[in-house]
C-alpha cells in the first residue's frame, strides 16, 4: 500500500465532501413529494436516463450552452470541467494498470507520480502518461484563461461580472492553486526520477541539477494535497456546489420534477446549481437602466441560499425572464422569484371580493376573452370584434360586460391562495359558456389559461387566430406602404414562445423592420405586472430606453401584441404604438 502523511489532508477533505453530498442528496430526495419520488424512480430505471447522461456530458462537462454565449467562456469552463474529469478517469485507469489490481487506494491516482517513480515501460502506460499530461495542460490552460477573464471580461462576452463573496474567493484561490501545484509536484518528481512526460518533464529537461527539485518535491506534494482539501471542504459552502448540484438538477428536471408553490427540494437544487457565472447580469434591464442590483439572479439566488432574501430583490423584478433564457444552467428564475415573494406578502389568505358579480355570455363556438388589460385599451377589443365579424366567425364576446381577473397578477405577486381562488372561479365561468376555442388579446391571461387552467379546449392568442384566418383566406389584408417594427411581449415571447404568428401577419400587412434585440432577447416594456413595487420613475426609465431602440428603426408604427405593452409605450413618443389587432382591423377586407 502506498502511503505518505501528505495524503491525509486530501483524504479528509474528500471524505467530508462525499459524506456531505450524499447527505444533501438524501435530504433532497426525502423531501420530494411522493409523486415526484415516483417520477424520479421511474426515470432512473428507464432508458431515458441515457439522454440525461447525454445532457450531463454536454452541459456539466462540455458546457455547450456557454460555447453558444461565447467561445472563450465555453472553452474556459469546458477545459476545466472536462479536463479535470478526464484526469480523474484516466488517472484511475493508469494507477490500476500500473498496479495490476482492480482495487487500490482512492488517493493512488491523485498522487500517482509520487508513488511510482519508474518511467512508463509499456505502451499502455506510455499512452496513459501522455494523455494525463495532455489533460493537465488542458486544465492549466483553463486556469490561465480564468485569470485572464478577471482582467478582460469583455473578451469573454461579459460586460459585467459577479462580485464574489469571501468564501467564493477563498475556494476560487484553492481551485486555482490545485493544478499549478500538481504541475509543480509532478515536475519535481519527474525531474528527480525522470518519469515526467512531455509536459511534466519540461522542468527536469530544462535543468541540469536536481538539488532544487529534491528540496521542493515533498512540500509541493503537501501543498497540492492541502489545496485539494481546502477546495473540497469549501465546495459545499461556495459556488462550486454547482458542480454536483447541476448533475442532480439535470436528472430531476429530466424526470419531470419542477417547482412547487413553496420553496421545495427542486428550488433548493436550482439555487445550489447557480455557478454565479454572471451571464445573467448583462441581460437585466433593471441593472442596466436603473441600477437595481438586488434583483440580479446571481445575487438573488445567493441570498436565497444564504437564507437572507430581501424584499427589493424579490419584489422589484419585472419577471421578464431575460435572465432565465440566458442562464446556461437554465435555472427557472421567475418561479424562484415568485416563490420567495410569498414570504413578503402581508395578506397570505386574501380572498377576492365581488366574485358573484362576474357573468360571461355564451352562445358561440369561439369565445373571445378580452381580459382586464384589454378593457383598459378598448381600441384593441373593438378591433378584435371587427376582425371576428369580418371573418364571419361564430363567436361570442365572453367578458364584454367586464372580466374576472385571470389570477396571474396575484400569482406573480406570490399570493397563491388568492390566485388559485380566482383561477378556479374564472375557469368555471369560461367552461360554463360551452365554447370550443378560446381567443384572448392578453398574453398575461393566455399564459395563465395555458399553464394553470384545465380548460381542455384550444386557447389562442389573437395573433395566432388572425394568422389562422389569414391562411384560410377568411380575411385578406390590403398591403400598404407602412413600415412596422415589432415588440415581443415578455409573456407572449419568452413566456409562451409565440414569436412567428405576429411577424407572419406583419409581413402580410407591410414592411417589417426588426430592431437589434428581438424574440427571446427583446426588452421588457417596463410596465410588467411582474414587478410588485417598482416606482413609476424606475418603470419610466426602463420604458424610455426600451422604446428608444424601436424609434431607431425609423418604422412608422411600433406594433405590440399585448395591451399592457401598448399602455406602457403610449405617450409622448416619436413613434406611434398600435396593437397588431388594430393594424389588421384597419386593413382587413373580407
Amino acid at each position, binding site marked *: 500500500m502506498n502511503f505518505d502523511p501528505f495524503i491525509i489532508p486530501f483524504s479528509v477533505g474528500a471524505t467530508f465532501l462525499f459524506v456531505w453530498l450524499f447527505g444533501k442528496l438524501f435530504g433532497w430526495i426525502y423531501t420530494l413529494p411522493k409523486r415526484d419520488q415516483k417520477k424520479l424512480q421511474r426515470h432512473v430505471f428507464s432508458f431515458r436516463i441515457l439522454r440525461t447522461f447525454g445532457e450531463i456530458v454536454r452541459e456539466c462537462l462540455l458546457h455547450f450552452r456557454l460555447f453558444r454565449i461565447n467561445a472563450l467562456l465555453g472553452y474556459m469552463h469546458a477545459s476545466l470541467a472536462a479536463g479535470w474529469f478526464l484526469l480523474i478517469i484516466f488517472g484511475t485507469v493508469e494507477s490500476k494498470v500500473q498496479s495490476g489490481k482492480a482495487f487500490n487506494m482512492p488517493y493512488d491516482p491523485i498522487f500517482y507520480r509520487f508513488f511510482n517513480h519508474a518511467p512508463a515501460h509499456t505502451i499502455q502506460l506510455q499512452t496513459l502518461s501522455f494523455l494525463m499530461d495532455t489533460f493537465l495542460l488542458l486544465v492549466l490552460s483553463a486556469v490561465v484563461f480564468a485569470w485572464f477573464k478577471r482582467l478582460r471580461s469583455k473578451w469573454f462576452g461579459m460586460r459585467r461580472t459577479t462580485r464574489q463573496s469571501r468564501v467564493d474567493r477563498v475556494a476560487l484561490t484553492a481551485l486555482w492553486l490545485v493544478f499549478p501545484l500538481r504541475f509543480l509536484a509532478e515536475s519535481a518528481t519527474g525531474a528527480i526520477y525522470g518519469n515526467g512526460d512531455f509536459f511534466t518533464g519540461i522542468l527536469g529537461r530544462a535543468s541540469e541539477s536536481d538539488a532544487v527539485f529534491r528540496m521542493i518535491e515533498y512540500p509541493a506534494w503537501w501543498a497540492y494535497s492541502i489545496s485539494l482539501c481546502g477546495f473540497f471542504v469549501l465546495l459545499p459552502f461556495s459556488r462550486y456546489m454547482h458542480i454536483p448540484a447541476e448533475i442532480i438538477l439535470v436528472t430531476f428536471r429530466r424526470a419531470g420534477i419542477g417547482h412547487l408553490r413553496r420553496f421545495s427540494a427542486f428550488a433548493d437544487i436550482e439555487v445550489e446549481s447557480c455557478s454565479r457565472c454572471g451571464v445573467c447580469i448583462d441581460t437585466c434591464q433593471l441593472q442596466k437602466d436603473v441600477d437595481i442590483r438586488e434583483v440580479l439572479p446571481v445575487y438573488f439566488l445567493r441570498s436565497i441560499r444564504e437564507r437572507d432574501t430581501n424584499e427589493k430583490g424579490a419584489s422589484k423584478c419585472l419577471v421578464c425572464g431575460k435572465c432565465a433564457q440566458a442562464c446556461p444552467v437554465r435555472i427557472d428564475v421567475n418561479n424562484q422569484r415568485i416563490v420567495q415573494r410569498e414570504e413578503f406578502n402581508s395578506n397570505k389568505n386574501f380572498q377576492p371580493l365581488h366574485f358573484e358579480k362576474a357573468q360571461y355570455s355564451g352562445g358561440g363556438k369561439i369565445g373571445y376573452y378580452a381580459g382586464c388589460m384589454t*378593457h*383598459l*385599451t*378598448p*381600441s384593441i377589443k373593438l378591433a378584435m370584434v371587427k376582425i371576428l365579424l369580418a371573418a364571419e366567425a361564430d363567436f361570442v364576446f365572453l367578458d*364584454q360586460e367586464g372580466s374576472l381577473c385571470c389570477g396571474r397578477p396575484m400569482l406573480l405577486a406570490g399570493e397563491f391562495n388568492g390566485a388559485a381562488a380566482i383561477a378556479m372561479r374564472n375557469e368555471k365561468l369560461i367552461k360554463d359558456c360551452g365554447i370550443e376555442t378560446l381567443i384572448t388579446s392578453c398574453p398575461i391571461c393566455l399564459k395563465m389559461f395555458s399553464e394553470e387552467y384545465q380548460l381542455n379546449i384550444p386557447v389562442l392568442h389573437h395573433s395566432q387566430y388572425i394568422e389562422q384566418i389569414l391562411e384560410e383566406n377568411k380575411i385578406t389584408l390590403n398591403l400598404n406602404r407602412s413600415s412596422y417594427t415589432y415588440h415581443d411581449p415578455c409573456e407572449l415571447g419568452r413566456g409562451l414562445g409565440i414569436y412567428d404568428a405576429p411577424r407572419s401577419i406583419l409581413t402580410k400587412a407591410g414592411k417589417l423592420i426588426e430592431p437589434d434585440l428581438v424574440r427571446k432577447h427583446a426588452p421588457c416594456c417596463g410596465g410588467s405586472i411582474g414587478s410588485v413595487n417598482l416606482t*413609476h420613475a424606475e418603470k*419610466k426609465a426602463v420604458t424610455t430606453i426600451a422604446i428608444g431602440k424601436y424609434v431607431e428603426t425609423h418604422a412608422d408604427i411600433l406594433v405590440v401584441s399585448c395591451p399592457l405593452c401598448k399602455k406602457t409605450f403610449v*405617450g409622448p413618443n416619436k413613434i406611434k404604438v398600435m396593437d397588431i389587432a388594430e393594424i389588421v382591423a384597419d386593413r382587413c377586407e373580407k
Partner: protein
Amino acid sequence: MGKDVLIIGGGIAGMEASAYLSAMGYQVTLVEKANELGGHLLRWERLFPTQRHGKEVLSFLHCGIDGKIRVIKNAEPVAAVTRDDLHIVTLSTGEVITANAVLITTGYKTFDASRKEEYGYGIYNNVVTSADLEEMFSSGKEMLTSSGIVPRRVGFIHCVGSRDEKVGNIYCSKVCCVTAVKQAIELKERLPYAEAFCFYMDLRMYGMHFEELYKEAQEKHGVQFIRGRLSEAAENQDHSLLIKVEDTLTGRPLKMKMDLLVLMVGFEPSDGTQKMAELFHLETGSTRFLKMADEHTSTNVSSVQGVFLAGTCSAPRTITSTITDARAAAAKITSYLSQYSIEQREN
C-alpha cells in the same frame, strides 16, 4: 429709456405683460404663432367663479396693447443667441429681433386625453374633454350626444392627466376641479332635467368663492359628487357609456350608464414652451414646466439671464393668477433693465 423687450406668446400673460411694459415706456414686440391674440381664452366661454364671459376679459387685455406695441402674428422664434446681454432672436418669418430682455409666455396645452385609452377619448363618440364641452357651450347650438339625443346623464371625470404618475404628471392642474363645478352648473342651467355627476379624488376649492360655487352646484343644481377615480369606460349598443368607478367613500365598485362623459383635462407645458426651453437653454423642472429661479422669491426669473417667465409656462395657473403673474413679470423686467439696487439681493 428705449430698451426693447421681446414677449413670446400672445395669450393672457403675454398680452398683460405687454400692456404694462409698454405703459412703462419700453419698446415691446409681441410674437404670436397663431393669427389671433388671446390664446386659450379664445376657447373659454364663461369663467369661474363669476360666470362672466371670457370675451370680456379678452377685450380688457386688448385695450392695454392695441396700437401701443408691435404685434407679430403667425410667427415664432426659430433661433436665439445672446451677445453682451442682448438677445438676438430670429423668427420663422426671417425677421431678426434684438431685445434687452425676453419674456416667455408660451403657456400650456391641455393633456391629450387619448393617452388614457381606458377612458375612450377618440374611440367613443360621447367621450369629450372639458375643452370640447366649452366649445359646445360657446357654439350656442343645442346640446346633443353623437346619437342626436339630449343627454340625460353626464359624468365629469376629474384629474385626467393630472395627479397621475402613470402618465408622468404628478402635479395638480389647479383649475380643473372648479371648472368641472362651473361646467356642471352650466350644463344644469341648459338641461335642467339632466343628471350631472362629478367623479373626483378630492376637491380643491382653494380660491375665493370656489367653495360657494361648489355649494351652489350641490344645493341649487343637484350636481352629485362621487369620490372615486374612473377605472374604465365601455360603449353600449346605443352609444351610451358604461363606466366603472369605485366609490371610495362607501368602498364599493359602481357601474353606471352615462350619455356623455366629460374628461377634465389637465395642464401640460405647451409645445411652444418646450421649444423655448430648447431654444433659450432654459432649465425645466421634474414636471417639465419651465423652472423658476426660486419658488418663493424669483418666480418670474428663468435659469438664463435676461429671460423671464410669466403665466402657465412655469406652472398651472388660473386666469386671475396668470394676469397677476404677468404684471409681476413686468415689474421684475423693469427692475432688471433699470438695474435697481434691489436686484443685488440674493435669493
